[in-house]
């Protein structure tokens, strides 16, 4: 017994060491940074311990803007992308001809380079000297005026960011849901058909409950992913997100560390801890809400 458990620890050692050095220690370190007041990067000294960093971050208008942006992004994109993915994958699994082709098309964004995607969005939304962009061209058909999506009003930029995010996360969700749908045993549908169940009722009373574990998984990971959004915003609006008013919480953390106004690891750490707290809370709420509904 004693020998066995010693052996077990030995086997676990490599992963424990790696996790400790690269995950646990930095996590704790961030926590320590976030409470050290007046930390000096050069001399590695600080003046005291307290909650000042948190107070500073929470009073920073840029941070508040970032929090607002992030929340809007999360609240808009997670439900939208999940519902869209559900519709598309249901449609995909109910067609027979060309199914493989459509599956491939819907999965393409997943394997496409971010920069290429950025370029595509430029063509769609960017205003240049010669053109107002494809979307504005289409808007003009309906008599709607050109909107500057990249440097214009905040809602327009938010729309582009949300659109981009939904588009980027869709393929993975479709993939997961298509396989979840395929895993539902066909006899359930046969039984339902023999009993004369309408299509809508089959979908809501049989299909949806059967794949609900996968939907919950997608919603939770979707929330976490959206809270961590940053690179998408950079791809669309450039590195100075604060000026564009399009910063996210992770973007704020990064700017505090390395940005033009950076060099404040204490503030960055405090913001990171706040993000961690938010994500943890939301995930716990998610699990509590869904646990009762998903029993299998």
């Amino acid at each position: 017994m004693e020998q066995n458990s010693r052996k077990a620890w030995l086997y676990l050692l490599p992963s424990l060491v790696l996790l400790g050095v690269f995950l646990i220690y930095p996590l704790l370190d961030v926590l320590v940074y976030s409470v050290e007041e007046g930390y000096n990067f050069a001399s590695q000294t600080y003046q005291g311990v307290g909650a000042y960093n948190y107070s500073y971050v929470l009073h920073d208008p840029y941070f508040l803007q970032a929090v607002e942006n992030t929340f809007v992004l999360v609240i808009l994109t997670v439900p939208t992308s999940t519902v869209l993915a559900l519709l598309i994958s249901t449609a995909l699994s109910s067609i027979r001809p060309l199914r493989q082709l459509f599956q491939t098309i819907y999965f393409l964004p997943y394997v496409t380079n971010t920069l290429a995607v950025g370029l595509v969005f430029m063509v769609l939304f960017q205003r240049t000297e010669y053109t107002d962009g494809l979307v504005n061209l289409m808007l003009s058909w309906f008599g709607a005026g050109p909107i500057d999506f990249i440097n214009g009003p905040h809602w327009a930029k938010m729309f582009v960011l949300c659109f981009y995010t939904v588009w980027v996360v869709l393929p993975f969700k479709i993939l997961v849901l298509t396989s979840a749908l395929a895993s539902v045993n066909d006899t359930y549908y046969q039984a339902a058909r023999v009993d004369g169940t309408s299509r809508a009722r089959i979908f809501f009373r049989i299909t949806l409950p059967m794949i609900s574990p996968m939907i919950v998984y997608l919603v939770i990971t979707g929330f976490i992913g959206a809270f961590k959004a940053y690179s998408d915003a950079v791809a669309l609006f450039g590195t100075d997100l604060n000026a564009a008013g399009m910063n996210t919480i992770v973007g704020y953390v990064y700017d505090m560390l390395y940005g033009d106004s950076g060099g404040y690891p204490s503030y960055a750490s405090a913001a990171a801890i706040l993000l961690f707290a938010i994500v943890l809370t939301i995930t716990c709420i998610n699990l509590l809400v869904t646990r009762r509904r998903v029993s299998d």
Partner: protein
Amino acid sequence: MNITLENLTKRFPARGRKAQGETVAVKDLSFEIPDGMLVGLLGPSGCGKSTTLNMICGLEAPSEGKIFFGEEEVTHLPPELRGVGMVFQNYALYPHMTVLQNILFPLENLKGEERPSRSEMRERALETARLVQIEELLDRRPKELSGGQQQRVAIARALVKMPRVLLLDEPLSNLDARLRLQTREEICKIQKKTGIPTLFVTHDQEEAMSISDRIVVMKEGVLMQQGRPQEVYDNPANLFVAKFLGTPPINVLEGEVSGGMLRLDGQPVLPVPGAEEGPVYVGIRPEGFRPDADGPMACGLNRVEVLGRETSMVCTHPACQADTLRAILRSEEEAEAQSGQVRFSLRPEKVFLFRRSSEERIRFDCPARAGA
């Protein structure tokens, strides 16, 4: 109300790009489920039983032929308009619903005038649950039930909308041996109580023989024989049916008819008046052997299995197709083995002759076989 199948044929198109031709799953099948009867559809796997079932319930459309429920033709009706109750092999109970919700589900699908009120639905669900004796399980989920209980829930769900016909697909195959015995009696009882014409599919001949009022034997999509179980057992139409029914299985030997005598390995063993001459397959039921020291059939004795009520003798015979043949004797009958040999005489009503080419039955006059 009788359920009638008329010349049903089901062809499936060839699958894959290279595959050629089509598969005929069911070919020119006609039979009837008389009102109030339990009919067993019997055959080896892949013989088209399940396809037949799916055509009756409307999940598959027949390529040719007609299906009647009573006077009404339902061949092209969608399943929900046929009024069939179906119990699937894996039961297909919705795992996220309780037993009660499962049973209520078909009722909640009803629309318009057919739709009972909430309390009526509950009443009918409870009534059906009582019929299959699962009243105390109504709040459980399917995964909290044993196989036998799940089976009953599935039957209740199929019965609750008072179907015109009940279909059971391999109803016992997911149960262990003891439960199988109990459940098949249960099914028989429920069917008699409700009087709904019932068709159940099985590959297990014992299962079919034991509870069916009628059996229908199929092979490769073609009807082989139908009738009352005992009738079919006593009078198989061909070698396939003879081999398929009965445990232990029938012994098949290669023989010859000449001069009104059946000859096995050259030795005359039984007079078969009226049978046409020529080489034949001979089927002898295990209970068709009678120990007889002067009997015409000599077999090498391998071993004797004493089973209490009866004795089973495993023998060898040069004409036998299998390595051994099995004779079952009542335990008071005694067979004397001399230098590794036993002699039998044959009960003519337990001996069947089949044409070598078509495997069709050759009849011969046998006073012991009434109506043969």
